[in-house]
């Protein structure tokens, strides 16, 4: 359980995080989402104890990060942005150093080997980190974060700079780790959050603009719902007038081209609207090519919250 209360952090006079409060229950994968420079990394650095908050408190399993940093550090695994590693060491040497630093003394060898297996690093023990590809460096970065089996994993943009295959592999690994750990990951890639997270915290300009499950956020954001119809008809102008007269709906938007037209109909009356529209179109010699309910995608929500909300940026 992570509890962040009124976290405030400024660099000099620049406030990077302003009055941020949230809770993360144990055993879930949480996505910290926000544009570059929104304050994601700052929040993560405060969670790991690397940066002291200017104000506010962070409790991890009831322990205050500022008061008991060494205890917090042994409960958390952290993968900083850009995966910094000691490139002059071999994979095994490096993981051995981490194991010792983390106090993994009993079964050190087995622990390192298990972690290497989990991260797909078997056979790479003697390779210099400098000689590894980006994807494998990322694996070493994850391996060092999970080596001491921490209850909490903090991953700062874990898939940045990887190719699509590597991204899928790392995501699988994170999903697997999320089964028995609390994972906080930051990203500005929306698909990542959709693919992994059961809770999302959207941050913009140092403030939380949305917090909840993806569905909750979409629900809160959706406002009025629309039905979008693509139709094929001989005269779209006549169709529009008839449509408005008969159904008492005035189509909001009309995208028109030679072969098809797109109507956006407000649908306050729920499912009944879709049904009557469908019947009406069929009865009036027009062809319905497509009909769908317009729900906000995470991308729409993201843009709405981080652009409209902070348009002074």
């Amino acid at each position, binding site marked *: 359980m992570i509890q962040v209360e009124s976290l405030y952090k400024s*660099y000099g006079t620049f406030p990077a995080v302003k009055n941020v409060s949230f809770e993360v229950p144990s055993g879930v994968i949480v996505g910290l989402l926000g544009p570059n420079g929104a304050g994601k990394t700052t929040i993560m*650095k405060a969670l*790991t*104890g*690397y*940066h*002291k908050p200017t104000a506010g408190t962070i409790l991890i399993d009831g322990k205050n990060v500022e008061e008991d940093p*060494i205890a917090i*550090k*042994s409960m*958390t695994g*952290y993968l*900083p*942005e*850009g995966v*910094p*590693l*000691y*490139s*002059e*060491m071999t994979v095994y*040497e490096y993981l051995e*150093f*981490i194991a*010792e*630093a*983390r*106090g993994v003394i009993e079964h050190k060898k087995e622990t390192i080997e298990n972690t290497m297996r989990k991260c797909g690093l078997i056979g790479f023990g003697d390779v210099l980190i400098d000689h590894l590809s980006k994807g494998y460096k990322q694996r070493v970065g994850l391996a*060092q974060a999970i080596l001491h089996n921490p209850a909490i994993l903090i991953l700062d943009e874990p898939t940045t700079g990887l190719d699509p295959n590597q991204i899928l592999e790392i995501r699988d690994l994170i999903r697997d780790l999320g089964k028995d750990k609390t994972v906080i990951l930051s990203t500005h890639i929306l698909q990542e959050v959709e693919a992994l997270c059961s809770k999302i915290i959207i941050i913009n300009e140092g403030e939380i603009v949305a917090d909840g499950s993806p569905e909750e956020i979409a629900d809160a954001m959706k406002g009025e719902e629309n039905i979008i119809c693509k139709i094929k008809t001989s005269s779209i102008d006549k169709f529009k007038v008839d449509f408005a007269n008969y159904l008492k709906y005035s189509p909001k938007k009309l995208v028109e081209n030679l072969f098809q037209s797109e109507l956006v109909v407000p649908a306050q009356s729920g499912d009944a609207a879709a049904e009557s529209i469908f019947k009406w179109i069929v009865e009036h010699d027009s062809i319905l090519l497509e009909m769908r309910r317009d729900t906000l995608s995470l991308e729409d929500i993201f843009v709405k919250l981080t652009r409209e909300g902070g348009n002074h940026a």
Partner: protein
Amino acid sequence: MHKASIVFRRELKSYFNVPIAWLFIVIFNLAISIFFFFVQQFFALDRADLRPYFSLLPLFFTILVPALTMKMWAEEKKQGTYEMLMTMPFSEFDLVIGKFLAAFVLLLIAIASTVFIPITMFLFGYFDPGQIFAQYIGIFLFAAACSAIGQYVSANTKSQISAFVVTMILLIILNIFSQIPLWFNMTGKIADVINWLSVNYHYNSFAKGVLDSRDALYFLIITTGFLYATMQKLYLGRWR
């Protein structure tokens, strides 16, 4: 202290992996040999005295130690491993002492690698073991002070080159302090203070074979002072 030893072992391993340590030892040996046997013309002196050897060491440390200590923190900051290190269960003490000991031990290894010079000396005559003991204590203390100063400078920058240059300038200044009273014909209290500040002033008494606790105290103050300042620097960095 156990945690510090983990940092120490990693650092020392890194020195030999890079392989800056080997380079350091080879250059150190070459430079010392050239100066000692050719420039100072040891054989022509026809004197079994280790003072020329021990008076050379500080000069080489002034030039070579900055090359060793420049990466200590500057590289960690540049690579980003600094953040990783600071989020592991190490205290500032573990990190600073571990790194300090690694550089210090490497300097001891470098000094030990030039042991052939004193050994050559033994072929020429009798030595006072007490004097040699004092001379070695002196150079060990000097090495410790250099590593501490170098580490402090490195903790204050991201650039290895700046760390190198600044450390070297600091060491040169500490070395030439004792010359200032001579240049300006100073006497009395001011000259005493300036002399006291100078590394040379204290090191020279060791080089002469004099073991004086006041001189040892000077080096201990410099070493612990800079180590403490480095710890503070890291600690305060968390509030940035």
